[in-house]
């Protein structure tokens, strides 16, 4: 295999995002911060367009390091779209004296490079490097609110848990390398097929596989490896919580989907029980603990754990159908989560009352993100109420929203494999989910509150509306998206 020059030119999103991250760092030298947000959005749009240039083709880049096909392009599109939305909700950073928006945007773009590597990796080196680029960037962004102890504490805990998980992931990769002599996914897959047919001991392979899976499940916060999630999501600034719970999860599941379908599909009988147990645990813990949360932000953390459970169902029922199902679910979940966090940030910012009462910042952060903060929101702010209601409905999986079709596709992928008991648990847990998602809707529409009219910047408003419209459009016409894959 020879090195071809077009290789470099075609891997455009990664290159563009790296370069534009560096460009943003230089833009940060300017006094004016007004340019940073539009520049970041422009870079993301360019990367989004560049991503789809190769539509319909399949390429292997850099000597079997990265694979780009339609599925990878769709996942990349989802993470780029999510980032675009998160960035467009970040207008208040420019007014914050202590914030460093140029650095934050640059780190976001760099972390996207990691996410794209995780989506399309063919060699385990790329998986490792991608996971690390994404994770290290997330550690920094979690701790970006430097004056706030909660943010710093969350960052430190996230780091220690994340690095621990990386250690386990790496040991798994090393053992797989020892067993198969290859880091390439298809090489590992060939070994799995031939070794199971030949018989003999595959202990090293199985131990490596499970350590690799445990490391990845840590990153996507599946139970019983989820314990870091509530603290980290709660402590991080809401903007970056929105990013973490969408982009990191999408990339993590794309990576799991790739490695399970290419490398480990030959030993499906061996891992599916373990994954099914993890799925049930994740669904139970995520949904039931979410019911008891008083803070909306903490509820969203547990909700992200429960959605990891639904996505895992798609992996347990691994088949050709689960690929578009997981992609669609990630898109639906990302849209509603970001819209919900967008409304939360507006509401939390518009409650200066508590600051006067309680004084210190930790109390402020807690009371502002409670369910009570939403009381009576919809009366004075019908738009925000509607956006929030649609995202809650979509997260709960009510028909006519994208979330319903996401759940439907994932469940039907698992039903084809005959895992009916898993679906029973999942449907029961969705019913539990309706309870805590509707608490917000009830607070907004039926409770008395003293919310004033909240001023929303025009662009912010457009993004919230676009997310809502897209959620409803995908709920009414899911074939729009399905036809693409």
């Amino acid at each position, binding site marked *: 295999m020879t090195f071809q020059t077009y290789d470099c030119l075609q891997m455009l999103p990664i290159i563009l995002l790296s370069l534009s991250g560096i460009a943003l760092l230089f833009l940060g030298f300017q006094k004016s911060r007004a340019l940073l947000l539009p520049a970041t959005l422009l870079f993301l749009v360019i990367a989004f367009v560049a991503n789809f240039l190769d539509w319909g083709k399949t390429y292997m880049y850099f000597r079997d390091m990265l694979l780009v096909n339609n599925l990878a392009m769709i996942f990349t599109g989802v993470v780029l779209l999510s980032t675009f939305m998160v960035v467009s909700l970040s207008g208040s950073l420019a007014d914050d004296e202590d914030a460093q928006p140029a650095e934050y945007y640059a780190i976001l773009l760099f972390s996207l490079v990691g996410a794209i590597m995780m989506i399309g990796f063919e060699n385990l080196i790329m998986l490792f490097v991608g996971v690390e680029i994404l994770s290290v960037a997330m550690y920094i962004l979690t701790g970006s609110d430097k004056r706030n102890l909660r943010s710093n504490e969350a960052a430190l805990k996230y780091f220690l848990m994340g690095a621990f998980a990386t*250690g386990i992931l*790496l040991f798994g990769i*090393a053992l797989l390398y020892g067993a198969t002599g290859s880091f390439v996914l298809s090489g590992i897959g060939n070994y799995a097929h031939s070794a199971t047919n030949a018989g003999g001991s595959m202990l090293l392979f199985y131990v490596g596989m499970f350590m690799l899976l445990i490391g990845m499940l840590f990153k996507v916060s599946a139970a019983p490896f989820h314990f870091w999630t509530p603290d980290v999501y709660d402590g991080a600034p809401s903007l970056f919580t929105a990013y973490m719970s969408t982009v990191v999860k999408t990339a993590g599941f794309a990576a799991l989907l790739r490695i399970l379908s290419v490398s480990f599909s030959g030993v499906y009988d061996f891992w599916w029980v373990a994954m099914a147990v993890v799925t049930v645990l994740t669904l139970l813990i995520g949904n039931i603990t979410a019911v008891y949360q008083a803070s909306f932000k903490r509820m969203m953390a547990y909700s992200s754990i429960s959605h990891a459970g639904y996505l895992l169902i798609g992996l347990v029922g691994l088949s050709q159908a689960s690929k578009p199902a997981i992609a669609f679910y990630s898109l639906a979940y990302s849209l509603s989560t970001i819209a919900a966090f967008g409304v939360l940030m507006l509401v939390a910012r518009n409650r200066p009352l508590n600051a006067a009462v309680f004084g210190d910042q930790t109390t402020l952060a807690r009371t502002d993100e409670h369910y009570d903060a939403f009381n009576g929101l919809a009366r004075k702010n019908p738009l925000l109420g509607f956006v929030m209601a649609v995202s809650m409905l979509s997260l709960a999986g009510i028909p006519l929203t994208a979330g319903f079709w996401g759940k439907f596709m994932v469940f039907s992928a698992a039903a084809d494999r005959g895992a009916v008991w898993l679906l029973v648990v999942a449907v029961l847990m969705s019913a539990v989910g309706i309870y805590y998602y509707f608490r917000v809707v009830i607070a907004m529409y039926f409770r008395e509150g003293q919310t004033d009219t909240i001023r929303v910047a025009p662009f912010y408003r457009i993004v919230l509306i676009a997310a809502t419209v897209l959620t409803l459009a995908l709920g009414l016409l899911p074939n729009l998206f399905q036809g693409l894959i």
Partner: protein
Amino acid sequence: MNPSLSYSLLFVAAALFSIGLAVVITKRHAVVVLMGIELMLNAVNLNLVAFSQYDPSRLQGQVFSLFVMIVAAAEAAVALALIIQVYRHVKTVVLDELTDLKQ
């Protein structure tokens, strides 16, 4: 290549990994936990280099271990920055005393 040599290397690597794991789980000082994590990563490096002697193309495992070292250095830099930042707030880096996020 002598296979018994490689087996003993694997045992050393597994022992190092277990020691690192034990340190991460039992110690409460953030810097010591970081040291445990580094130990785990170095166990992986040893494993990778040991396995790469069976690899016909030889270099893959060794190249991977270089990547691991570089990333571990970057991680350590971020970790120390975070630890210093926490220390400025509460004058301690003992993890059990950081309970602000617990409800």
